[in-house]
Structures are given as structure tokens and as C-alpha cells.
């Protein structure tokens, strides 16, 4: 850089402080600043690039990998849980179907039994009814025949009382028919 040559020339003017003009253009200070800056930059670059920055990027990468791994784990677990949930739902549906079938079977069996029993009872009742009707019929027939006999006797008595002579049994029968 050409500035150092000028710095050598201007170094005689160094003491004039408040003379106006930029302090930055006092070229006698340039050489030292440039050399030291290069030195500082080289040391800083070396320390940062070899020692410090790899640790920072390492931490960032490690964190990224950890987060990605955790997310993958979570996703895998979620998939597993979904499969299990689906299986459980299928099991529940199957159980429900089975239960419904069992209930329907029991109901059918019960109603069949009830119908059978009812039919049996009805048959017995019908038999009893028929027997009762028959006995009533018999009693009525007996009573009716009894009535005829009573009527013949009564008619015979009435005729005997009125006419003084008894009517024959055949006459009475034909008169009452």
C-alpha cells in the first residue's frame, strides 16, 4: 500500500491535534494498525475456525439430529398406536356382533319355548273346554228327557183329573211331540 510512504512524510506533523482534518488520515498511525489488524485477524480466524466454531456447529447439528430423531420416534409411535387402535376397534366391533348374535339367539329360543308352552296350555284348555261342554250337553240332554217324563206324568194326571179316565202312554207321547 502506498499509504505508508505518505505516513513517513507526514509523521513530522503528528503533534498537531486540534488542527482540523480527519484523525483517520494521519498516515503515521496506519502501519501499526494494519500490521496489528492482520495479526489479530489471523489469530482470531485460527481460533474461531479450529476451536470455537466447530463446537457451535456441532451443537447445532447435534440438536437438529436429536430433534429429527425424536420426531421420527414420535411418528413411529403414533403409527403404532394407530394400528393398535384400529385393531382394538375391530375387536370391539367383533365382540359387539357376537353379543348381538347371542342375544338374538337367546331371544329366538325363548320365544320359541314360550310359543310351544302356550300351544300346549291351549291344547289342554281346549280339551277341558270340550269335556266341560260335553258334560253340559249330557246334563242338558238328561234334564230334557227328565222334563219329557215329568210332562207325560203331569199331562196324564191333568187328563185323568179332567176326564176321569187315564190316557194311554202312547196318546200322551204323541200329544207332547
Amino acid at each position: 500500500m502506498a499509504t505508508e510512504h505518505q505516513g513517513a512524510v507526514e509523521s513530522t506533523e503528528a503533534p498537531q491535534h486540534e488542527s482540523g482534518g480527519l484523525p483517520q488520515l494521519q498516515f503515521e498511525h496506519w502501519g501499526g494498525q494494519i500490521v496489528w489488524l492482520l495479526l489479530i485477524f489471523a489469530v482470531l480466524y485460527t481460533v474461531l475456525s479450529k476451536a470455537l466454531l466447530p463446537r457451535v456447529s456441532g451443537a447445532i447439528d447435534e440438536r437438529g439430529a436429536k430433534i429429527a430423531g425424536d420426531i421420527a420416534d414420535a411418528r413411529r409411535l403414533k403409527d403404532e398406536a394407530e394400528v393398535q387402535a384400529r385393531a382394538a376397534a375391530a375387536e370391539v366391533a367383533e365382540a359387539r356382533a357376537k353379543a348381538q348374535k347371542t342375544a338374538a339367539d337367546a331371544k329366538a329360543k325363548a320365544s320359541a319355548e314360550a310359543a310351544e308352552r302356550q300351544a300346549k296350555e291351549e291344547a289342554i284348555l281346549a280339551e277341558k273346554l270340550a269335556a266341560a261342554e260335553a258334560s253340559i250337553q249330557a246334563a242338558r240332554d238328561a234334564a230334557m228327557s227328565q222334563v219329557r217324563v215329568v210332562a207325560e206324568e203331569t199331562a196324564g194326571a191333568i187328563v185323568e183329573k179332567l176326564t176321569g179316565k187315564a190316557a194311554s202312554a202312547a196318546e200322551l207321547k204323541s200329544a207332547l211331540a
Partner: protein
Amino acid sequence: MATPIDPMHQFMIQKIVTLPTVNVPGLGAIDLSINNSIAAMLLAATLIIVFYALAGKGEVVPGRLQTTGELLYGLVDGLTSSIIGHDGKKYLPFVFTLFSLILFCNLQGMLFGWTGNFLGFTASSQLAVTLTLGMMVILTVIGVGFAKNGLKFFKLFAPSGVPWPLLFLLVPIEFISFLIRPITLALRLFGNMLGGHVVLKIFATFVAILLAMAPAYWAVGALALSSVVALTALEFMVAFLQAFVFAVLTCVYLNDVVHLDSH
């Protein structure tokens, strides 16, 4: 401004430790004494190393310091990988060293200015420093350019897909724009740090002067004070932004020579 306080005083170089002057043939005498500018840069480098020694603990769940360190690292990492692309990782330490050194130099002037000694000296307001940084960037760009492309490096000055008569115009323009890159880099940083600091100093001086005058002027003083507060906030932003801009442009210039084929 006839004030007892010179706004340029903060940029004066003051010797702290006297070291021998070395005579380099062809360059002249170089005074290696440690002055306040060099001490500020040494402090910045020390602070960066201490900061990353503490922040780089490498824990999976980071603390505050580590988070801040990783934030700055991630910022530069994002720059190199988004601008230079896949090859960017190789240039990360260089860009990061530039960025962190400039950032710490800028911030020291803002944070430790009250001490009034080298701790609060803004080394990045020294043209010698910014120009050296600019030259380092451009020499690195040239070095990488030749190492990667050999003599094809000169294609940088001749954009492809241009009708050949235009090249007579374009090549000199490209060449000059390449040559002034270190100067623009240096002047941008230098000018921002210088200008902001001078304005801050002038406004702050203004407050003191107005306070010393009749109470009727105090309202104006309050106005000046509030602008100092606002400017201080702005200067902190500029301190960060200029370091960032320097890093971005370094990446852009490196990208030009790393991906010369697609240029």
C-alpha cells in the same frame, strides 16, 4: 463550533504501550506501538474468543449465552449458505471472523464510550482498519478465484451472453467496479461509524451548551436530548447493520468467483 469538546477527538490515536518501530524495506518505518485503536481491536478479539469459549458449550438445550452465540453463528451460516450455496460452509469461518470482529468493534464504541479510554474506541471508524479489511476481502476473492478457476478467473470481467462489441464497453466497467470494491467496502463502514458518532457527539454537546444557557433554551435542549436518545438507538442498529452488510457483500463477492460458470 466553538465548543471545548471536539467531535473528532474520539477518533484521535493515542499511544498506550510503546513498542519498537520496525523498518520494513519498501514500506518505510512501521510503529508497532499499541495505541487505542489496536487495543480496541485486541479487546474485540478477546471478547469474541471469551464469548464463544463460554457460549460454545455445545449443550443440546442451550442457555442464554449459547443461544446468542448460535444466533450470530446461524446468521452468518444462513448468509454463506444462501448466497454462496453448498460450498459456502468453507468460507464461513472467514466471513464469520470478519462479521464478528466488525460487530464487536462497532458495538464497543457504543457500549463502552462512557469510559473515555480505549475500551470505547471505535476501531472500525479508522480508515486504516476498514481499508485493510476491504483489501483482505478482495485479496481473498482474487485468491479463491484463481484457485478455483485458474485463468478462467478473468471471465469475471466478461459476462457471458453479451454481444461481443459490447465487451469493449463492459470489460472496463466490470474491471473498475471490481477494483473499487475494497474501497467501497472500506468507505461504507468508515463513513457510517464516523458520521453516526460525530452526529451523536455534536447533539450531545448541544444539550450541554443549551443547559448552560438561560432556562428559556432548555426546551430546545430537551429536544436535542431526545434526538440523542433516538440517534443512539439508530447507531446501535447501524453498528449491527454495517457488520451485516460487510458480511453480505463478502459473500456476494465470493459467490461471484466460486460460481464463475453461472455468472
